[in-house]
């Protein structure tokens, strides 16, 4: 599904991502972890096109997408959530999802005129499903800025799903959550895998990562220092040293 070959992104002298090789298979839940500043978010930003790579290639479903602008990558099937939630605060929950329906499938479903100039009725079903999934149906008309933090996170995820992605990049979705919320998030992620979405999970919160991923890669200073199953990673001394501090997780 996704392949990064010798991907690098430098900012002047800082090598945020340095020669990264990564392969994410279809249907996997792949975790990307590492200490702060290890290049996780930068990797996501390069994959989605917000930064151009300094070197290396990005292959999505076998195609080199390096030259595509961000909005085109979305249409190819890559969606993301943001670490610092970036909702459209002055739009309602419903509207946040509505403007995100930009996938190729949605473009085919309705004619140009209907899609852009039609009212809210055209998209009701699909958006209702997303709201149901995220537990936000009762807040449909609330301004996104007025939602509680947990609800905002759920909306952020729902909005990424509105684009019918094949690859979903989650950038630290569990930040600031308590155990119960993390459990719910885990449930939702597993349900998503069930519907065929491939997921790249960038995360700090081990509780979530270890419990939901098939495979994990560990970054440090922009380079991959380890890759394997959660059990392998937990046992890896190099990882322990760089990240877990040589002690219990």
């Amino acid at each position, binding site marked *: 599904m996704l392949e990064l070959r010798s991907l690098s992104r430098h900012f002047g002298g800082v090598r945020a991502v340095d020669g990264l090789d990564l392969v994410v298979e279809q249907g996997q839940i792949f975790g990307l972890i590492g200490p702060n500043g290890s290049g996780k978010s930068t990797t996501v930003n390069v994959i989605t096109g*917000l930064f151009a790579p300094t070197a290396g290639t990005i292959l999505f479903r076998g195609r080199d997408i390096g030259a595509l602008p961000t*909005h085109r990558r*979305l249409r190819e099937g890559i969606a993301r959530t943001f670490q610092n939630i970036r909702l*459209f605060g002055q739009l309602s929950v419903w*509207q946040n999802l509505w*403007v995100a329906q*930009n996938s190729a499938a949605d473009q085919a479903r309705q004619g140009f005129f209907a899609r852009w100039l039609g009212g809210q009725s055209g998209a009701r079903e699909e958006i209702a499903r997303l709201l149901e999934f995220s537990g936000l149906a009762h807040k449909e008309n609330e*301004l996104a800025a*007025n939602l509680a933090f947990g609800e905002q996170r759920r909306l952020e995820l729902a909005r990424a799903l*509105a684009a019918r992605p094949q690859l979903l990049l989650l950038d630290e979705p569990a930040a600031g959550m308590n155990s119960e919320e993390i459990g719910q998030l885990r449930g939702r992620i597993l349900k998503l895998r069930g519907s065929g979405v491939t997921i790249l999970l960038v995360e700090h919160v081990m509780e979530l990562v270890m419990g939901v991923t098939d495979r994990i890669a560990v970054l440090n200073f922009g380079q991959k220092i380890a890759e394997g199953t959660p059990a392998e990673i937990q046992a890896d001394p190099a990882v322990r040293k760089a990240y877990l501090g040589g002690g219990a997780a």
Partner: protein
Amino acid sequence: MDFYFGLAQLIGVHTLLGLSAYIVLLTGQVTLAQAGFFAVGAYTAGMLTVLAGWHLVPALGVSAMSGAAVACAVGFPALRVKGLMLVIATLAFGEGVRLFFFNFDYQIAKGGIKVGPLGGEGFRQIRFFPENGWETWDVMLFIWVFVVAAMALLWWFDRSRYGTVLRAVGEDELAAQSVGINLTAVKVSAMTVGGAIAGVGGGLYAHYTTHIEHASFSILLATFAIAYPIVGGLRSVFGTLLAVIFVQGFLVEGLRFLGDWRNLLFGALIVLAMNLRPSGILGRRRHA
């Protein structure tokens, strides 16, 4: 009574100008170019009715298209860059248009006299309305048909996905890109629609004042254009209408007794208004 019709005409035309800026402002772009598109529409319509003998309605159609075309052409390079650059680019464009018409001569002889734009002297004798027996009342209604149409169009946009996407772009361009919105297409389209509306406004303006010149399309007019939606708030088109009524009806007319000092007051009032109410008269939304 004629005086009030005249005022209503002015308010109508300025509302069109304000609406043309409103749609661009929704996308978060500040444009000082609307007066330029207004000018293009004014000269286009004037030339078509005076020099080519067209009826006003098709002439206004061409005004809309020329305003739109110029807006699209300006939008493409200008909207690729960050917001503040757009302010500069549009300011320069507006001044450029004014300079262009300052140098623009195109006169032909009609019925023994020369008519048409004459550089710094401007374009006189745009007499479609008087020549066809339109009363002040008729002109006023005619103008307001267009104002209502423009407001209806923008109100429709506001309720449609397009308008919501415009506002999303205005909120957060990064997020908008990431959910698949083509920023350039959206911003240029808004600019183009704004250009069309400004073009129509300009065409109507040329005909009800019967005399236009480069100085009418100055930075002051460009400032009014964005002042209306900013002061009125971007919540709805009605804010812009209210702002025009407030500024032109109340301030301009009400302060007429101040004579020359009026212009002085505009600047001061804008500064004051922005300090007291940075989000505009109708302000930001609190509830959907």
